[in-house]
């Protein structure tokens, strides 16, 4: 098995990981390597064609793919080594990881390891939603991949589960695909986003925000035909052919847990101190692995700031 050594090893080439790599390089670390299991680096912004990326970190606004490309080229210019199609399987020591890739198996040790593995939305199973298993069920993430990357046919009438920032992003993605959002459901008494964002999208895309409304069951055999919901005035069926599960984030904490790092029971994120260091000395966690969900620029700023705090 190949063995190698670097100064800083970062798992996850999204905004947080790449920004941290650039910062590490700029602060003088010679060997900085970023791993990503995907074929391309860049993380989630690659799938999001909306504008709005880069405001707080790059001080200009651009689309997700452009934003991702900017960070990749900045990292490469800085001399960061980016290894894609490379999965960190497990720990091979306190400060070493076992990897697999088309190049074979490898063990990399480092003086510092940064976990920037991100977060995902809980899907229908993780939320234990009953009903049939028809075509037409997405998370915001899988919806964006289908619409922006694969240009797949979605449907005509969608119900969005959740009313957080990302739920409004789902409305825009659906509109881009020609799908009308008929309702946005939340069991809470109000949405959990900025009021202007809600008013703006509600006015423009004309959907109903249904508060105190809980999804009970998905209906339809081949294709989604509707959702049964519980409202303060009783149960009802909302007809739709698409359901998008948005928000309800779970950090991708597999590596953190395999390493027996201390995990917060409430957020399921690794517990870190003010320097972003986990319960293991030399291992750090950042980005959406910590308290999801933050915007890409917040994650990138967090990555950049590790520099001043740690090194």
């Amino acid at each position, binding site marked *: 098995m190949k063995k190698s050594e670097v100064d800083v090893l970062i798992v996850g080439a999204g905004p947080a990981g790449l920004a941290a790599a650039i910062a590490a390089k700029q602060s003088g670390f010679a060997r900085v390597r970023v791993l990503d299991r995907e074929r391309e680096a860049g993380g989630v912004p690659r799938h999001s064609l909306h504008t709005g990326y880069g405001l707080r970190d790059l001080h200009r606004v651009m689309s997700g793919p452009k934003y991702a490309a900017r960070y990749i080229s900045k990292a490469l210019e800085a001399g960061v080594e980016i290894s894609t199609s490379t*999965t960190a399987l497990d720990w091979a020591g306190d400060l070493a990881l076992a990897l697999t890739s088309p190049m074979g198996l490898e063990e990399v040790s480092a003086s510092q390891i940064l976990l920037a593995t991100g977060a995902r939305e809980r899907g229908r*199973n993780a939320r234990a939603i009953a009903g049939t298993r028809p075509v037409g069920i997405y998370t915001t993430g*899988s919806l964006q991949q289908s619409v922006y990357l*694969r240009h797949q046919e979605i449907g005509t009438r969608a119900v969005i589960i959740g009313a957080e920032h990302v739920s409004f992003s789902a409305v825009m993605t659906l509109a881009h695909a020609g799908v009308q959002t008929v309702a946005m459901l939340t069991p809470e008494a109000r949405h959990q986003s900025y009021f202007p964002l809600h008013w703006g999208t509600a006015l423009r895309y004309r959907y109903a925000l249904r508060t105190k409304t809980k999804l009970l069951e998905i209906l339809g055999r081949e294709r989604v035909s509707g959702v049964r919901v519980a409202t303060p005035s009783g149960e009802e069926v909302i007809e739709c052919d698409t359901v998008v599960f948005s928000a309800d984030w779970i950090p991708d904490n597999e590596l953190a847990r395999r390493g027996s790092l201390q995990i917060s029971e409430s957020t399921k994120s690794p517990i870190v101190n003010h320097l972003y260091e986990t319960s293991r000395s030399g291992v750090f966690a950042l980005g959406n692995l910590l308290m999801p969900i933050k915007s890409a620029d917040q994650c990138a700023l967090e990555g950049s700031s590790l520099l001043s705090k740690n090194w």
Partner: protein
Amino acid sequence: MAKRVAPHVRTFDVAIIGAGVVGAAIARELARFDLSILLIDAKSDVGAGTSKANTAILHTGFDTVPGSLESRLVSRGYFLLRDYAREVGISYETCGALLVAWSAEEFANLSKIQEKAIANGYLESYLVDVADLYAKEPHLGPGALGALAVPGEWIIDPWSTTLAYATQAKAAGAVLQLSTRVERIAQSSHLHTLHTSQGEFEARYLVNAAGLYSDVIDREFGFEDFVVTPRRGELMVFDKLSRSLVSHILLPVPSSMGKGVLVSPTVFGNVMLGPTAENLSDKSATESSITGLAFLQEKGRKIMPALLDEEITAIYVGLRAATEHSDFQISLHAPQRYVTVGGIRSTGLTASMAIAEHVRDLLTQAGLDLGKQDALPAIHIPRLGEATLRPYQNEPLIAANPSYGEIICHCERVTRGEIVATLASPIPPQDQAGLGRRTRATLGRCQGFYCHAEVRALLESKGGVS
């Protein structure tokens, strides 16, 4: 070896309706003889009905009804399938089971169950006291009183079992006819004519292994020996990170409070909770229910609270082909040259090879001449379990073909090499679910969020470069 038949030939020595675990096992058993065999199924894949939602346990038969056909076939099938799994590469783990007693009544029942096990020829069970039980299963919820250990109960990969049978039957010359619904059966003095959605097929002998629809096929012959009532079983599968919580199959003890649910590791490295048991009238009602999922969560929280704090990866729903009889309903109708294999419960996976032998013998009683017997062609199917080396861990394999180091499905660590090989296999998957059963791709914690699009592209290009 089975007779090879030309593609246009539509007359067979034996036709088997139903390519579930039982039908596929029968096809495999008969394929070693000088017979032409047709295995036919309405679905687009083998094992895509009741078989796909099996609880995946290799049963010793310790708790079957002593003296029943099920008892005999499960006991024998256990050893046959165990050896077969070793031979062709079906994953299994020898974890053993604990029947955990939660009440005085259940605790008192343990010794009765042990006596029943002995009556079934299973002699290795033993009682476990409460201290030893919590030592064996430290994450068990509070309140357990003791257990009966059944070390011979193992876990197995149910999907690969059906696939291996069908693959070997096909390699030996059997014809597999999928996506073909039998609509009507006409009989003459020496031939059955199956009128199907894909035209007519003829067979001298017929085996009904149609599972949920076995009573419907039986009615075609005027038999009304049983009625199939679909019994819904809902199962929850928990994240791989929960696997370390459970060491044994934790079985419920039958009591006056009804049948409980089990918590079991899977060979894929997950933990399963279930199943529910609810009689329905609709044979296609494979939706999960609000009450069923709530019931599982409530039961699971009592058995193992820490498990319920883990993420739910998947929810499976299966319909068992329950009948009004407790035993397997396997009967020969010699004048019609017809064997019914109905009422196969979840023990059917374990019993499948013994059922196949039994059906073979019944067919010969009806006059089928088996002819010369040959060894079946050797096959190997991809091992999907976590207890053995997976392709992404296999350095020489990756060196020979780097696509075995390219993980496509991150949650289950399935590589491009495995997906491409599966798409080129003798019984290739027709859809994402079929690919999932063969490789585990898309079945992990993200349920396809990361790899769905890539996998779909690979499926559509039949493994070509996407």
